[in-house]
């Protein structure tokens, strides 16, 4: 049943070019365009190749989904996917054909696949930028300094979980209020709110127990841990291995909790109106 719902949702998504582009391709496309322009500018004006660690560039590219600005695009995709049936009044067409849980989980699956694809494109965009830089003489490629594969996988999974949490928030609001715009606005407020909170409270100095509950902070700690970067100047990520474990649990917990809420809400919802 779930497989049928996923197949149908994927079929529909493939024919929604606008959602696919603006939701999952626009961010890698914009990043690639900007970086190519930057490489060209460097080649023209600096005449000195910048050393580029290919591994770190790719990991850095994948980590860009942590940006609150870029997350708006993913939130818009999720809002469109979860609220489209209210907007077009198509739940009454779909709901009698499969279980409600399968229909919502299928949307999560397709959104998750879109996010994974977008993360891959971000990695590829970083590779293309490096290759272009080397070609025009703006960059001098250097082999990866230190481990590359594990940080890449860790960054990929962290970014994917963070985007799924964002999608979960959007799904819950879209289902509860049957509106895409409300869901998108809430997701934006949530993303920006966490960014502001993180800047204000210096969470790495606070007891870990409370700040890890915020998904953005969990993702921040995890990214720092998997890439071996400092949490803050002078505070090594490696010092907090336990923190990273709790952060991973928090992120996965948020994902499951929000997914469960979205399914539960839709299961209980009366579709007398869309």
């Amino acid at each position, binding site marked *: 049943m779930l497989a049928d719902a996923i197949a149908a949702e994927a*079929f529909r998504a493939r024919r929604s070019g606008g959602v696919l582009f603006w939701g999952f391709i626009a961010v890698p496309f914009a990043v690639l365009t900007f970086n190519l322009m930057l490489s060209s500018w460097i080649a023209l004006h600096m005449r000195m190749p910048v050393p580029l660690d290919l591994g770190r560039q790719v990991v850095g590219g994948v980590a860009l989904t942590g940006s609150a600005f870029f997350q708006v695009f993913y939130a818009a995709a999720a809002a469109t996917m979860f609220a489209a049936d209210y907007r077009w009044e*198509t739940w*009454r067409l779909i709901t*009698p054909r499969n279980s409600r849980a399968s229909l919502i989980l299928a949307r999560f699956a397709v959104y998750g696949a879109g996010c994974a694809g977008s993360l891959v494109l971000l990695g590829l965009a970083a590779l293309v930028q490096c290759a272009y830089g080397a070609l025009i003489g703006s960059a001098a490629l250097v082999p990866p300094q230190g481990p590359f594969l594990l940080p890449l996988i860790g960054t990929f999974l962290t970014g994917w979980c963070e985007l799924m949490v964002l999608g979960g928030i959007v799904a819950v609001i879209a289902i509860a209020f049957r509106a895409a715009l409300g869901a998108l606005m809430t997701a934006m407020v949530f993303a920006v709110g966490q960014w502001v909170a993180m800047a204000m409270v210096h969470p790495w100095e606070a007891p870990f127990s409370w700040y890890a509950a915020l998904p953005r902070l969990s993702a921040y700690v995890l990214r720092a841990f998997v890439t071996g970067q400092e949490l803050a100047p002078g505070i090594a990520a490696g010092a907090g291995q336990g923190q990273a474990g709790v952060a991973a649990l928090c992120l996965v917990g948020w994902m499951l909790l929000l997914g469960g809420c979205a399914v539960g809400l839709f299961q209980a919802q*009366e*579709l007398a109106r869309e």
Partner: protein
Amino acid sequence: MTKRFGAVTALDRLSFSVPEGGVYGILGANGAGKSTFFRLCLDLVRPSGGGLSVLGGAPGQVAVRRQIGAMIETPRYYPTLTAAETLMMLARTSGVRAPEIGRWLARVGLMDAVHRKVRHFSVGMKQRLGIAAALIANPRLLILDEPTSGMDPAGILEMRTLIRELAAKDGVTILLSSHLLDEVQRTCDRVAIFARGTLVAEGRIDVLLAGQEKLRLLATSQQALLAALGGRGVCDGDGVLMTVSRAETPSLLRALVDGGIDLIEARWMGGGLEKFYLEQTGGDHAG
């Protein structure tokens, strides 16, 4: 079964059963509870009291719902999909691996619009596509809410023929609502009449209308006709009025002709579903 939306009682202690096979009409004014009843059958909404069984199971069971095809109110679609893509997507949602898209689109007269985006469809075309969508998973039970709404007269005739064929040849049980009472009388075997959320009448149409309609016969000789009817008819101008069930009518007419009566005209007078409906609902048009 009772269904309340806040303080509003949409359906009040409704109790009846729909036999398998044939075409069953649900009649009622706007707001009488017809669409709510259909939504309950599809588990889109849940009863506030009591319950219902559909095809032997609860409407919430996916196995039950997959045997139901439905078109509730004005059908809505994803605007980015074509007619064929819409059916493909719905078939996949229903778990149908190899849907007969061409067959159903042809059957509802949409073969010319297979690859047109649904957002460019007229109301009547959307209605036809809604019926194809309801049929794409080969359902045992077909629920059609106002299936001929927005259709031209030729379309209404086609739809009536399709509905009768589905019931007679494919063995599909059809539950439909319509405000076109003449159409309902021609299409349905049984009806239920709702008024303000309650059931006011239910049964076979010919039984409900028995005694309501009169057959008016006109023959070359009124006296010979009266004599042949043996006191069952009364004079009505130059014709004869008589009470007879629709089921009996063919054999009666055959007997009259075999008995040497030259019939010029035979037609139903008065009564009809419309009159019966108005009597039952008290002319209610805003449940």
